[in-house]
């Protein structure tokens, strides 16, 4: 893939990220953090390819599998815990 294009995407995403959450009430700081933390588990995509594309038993596959386990914990745990927190905020919100 074209390198410059990747950088282009990166820079735009950075500005977007900076703009997105300029004014967040402090009440939501924790859920925002844990929710975005779950998104950073996107590295799961790389882990899936690394696990599946390498031959069985190679170092690459084992590293990939480890990555996959850790990334999945990050993703699944992150989303669920955020949801639990937000549910708590919600129920008395009326």
């Amino acid at each position, binding site marked *: 893939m074209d390198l410059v294009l990747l950088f282009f995407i990166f820079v735009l995403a950075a500005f977007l990220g900076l703009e997105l959450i300029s004014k967040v009430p402090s009440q939501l700081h924790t859920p925002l953090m844990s929710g975005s933390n779950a998104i950073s588990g996107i590295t799961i995509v790389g882990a899936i390819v690394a696990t599946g594309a390498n031959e069985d038993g190679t170092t690459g596959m084992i590293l990939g599998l480890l990555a996959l386990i850790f990334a999945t914990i990050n993703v*699944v745990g992150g989303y669920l815990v955020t949801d639990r927190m937000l549910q708590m905020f919600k129920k008395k919100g009326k």
Partner: protein
Amino acid sequence: MEFDSIINLAYVIAATLFVFGIKMLGSAETARRGNMVSGIGMLIAVVVTLLDREILDYKWIVAGLIIGALIGGIAARVVKMTSMPELVALFNGFGGFASLLVAWAELEKIESLGWQLYTGQMGTPAQFSSFVIYLAMLIGGVTFTGSLYAYGKLSGRVSGRALVFGGQKFLNILLLVAILGIGVVFTWGENLDTASSLFVIGVCLALIFGVMGVMPIGGGDMPVVISLLNSCSGLAASAAGFVIGNNVLIVAGCLVGASGLILTVIMCKAMNRSLGNVLFSGFGAASQSSGDDDDREPKAISAEDAYYVMEAASSVVFIPGYGMAVAQAQHVVKELAELLEENGAEVNFAIHPVAGRMPGHMNVLLAEADVPYEQLVEMDNINPIMPTVDVAVVIGANDVVNPAAANDESSPIYGMPIIEAHNAKTVFILKRGQGKGFSGLVNKLFVMDNSRMIYGDAKATISAMVNELKG
């Protein structure tokens, strides 16, 4: 070719959902849906990745997904709300570690293919691949051990105090130079045999550096560290995206990196300190006895006597801090607040942005105890009405109510915005003992004429008041 376009198109959709998800997380009404939207984005990304033609075998993928989902799911279900900061730190560290491993797996792939074949496939120069592999490893590794150490500090497994020793800065600089030096050799070295041993050394150094970086940072500065590490885990994912040339990783990781940075800046502002100061000063490590001329003794009062004042009050403000989390007093505080309201008083909770150990820590605890959202007042809104408040009850907070921050220019925390509890007509301070706060500073609030200390466990104290009110 066409198939790849479909995958990439799905990635665009996933990235869009992440953007919307983060946006929606920023507002109370839409936050929960926002989290689900971003979760759907993640699901789409995972599912289309499974269609990738490079994948030869699914059994390990399925196994990895199941194991990870089970561990993550159970951890998320059983954790107590009071342990939320450490769990978030732990998950965060895992994300960073996964990015490190993805970079490592890619290096293995390069070794099995050889540079010529690999660069032909990727269409990027060898130096670029080496560079981003090293970068993803470095950020991921630092995030991993930094988060684990933060987890240890937050859960009380290791001392939460800032740890400073002689030559620490020198050692850190030495480490950093070594990491960068190896990175340069790794990036421009042609030999794949040395590359892999250099990489392993780099991994070790990065892991050590993560621990060293968090070591001199004390408990009260944890909100900053946690949000910074959060930002780092995003950047690590983004770097891993450059490694495997995958744009959804680049975008999603970068979004997290940038939004985490914003949160970090907000936290720093709430303490009126620069990020550099938080990271490198070892703040709170040395208990500076700042030649204090004020030798007035704090006046103590019993919970029963305090109750009579509370009963007569028409407006009460609770100011919670980390001590409330430690004592797990949020439920009894809520009970007390309800009784006071029935008694005709107006009750509010004043929340300082850095009270507790993670951004928004107090909000989570009070929400768990069912305190209505309308009663949670941010610092800037409560301060103007503070002089009209009859009783301010400080529960396990210290530095965030220290008037020295407002009026003592020689104080290390001078300029930090505080909740002006000292302006209330009466201040009750619930405190376990006579120890100092995280900053190690003497708190002038405790010796003021309108202040009364109530020593003892916050939960027991509040329970005693609740019983008086009921009785």
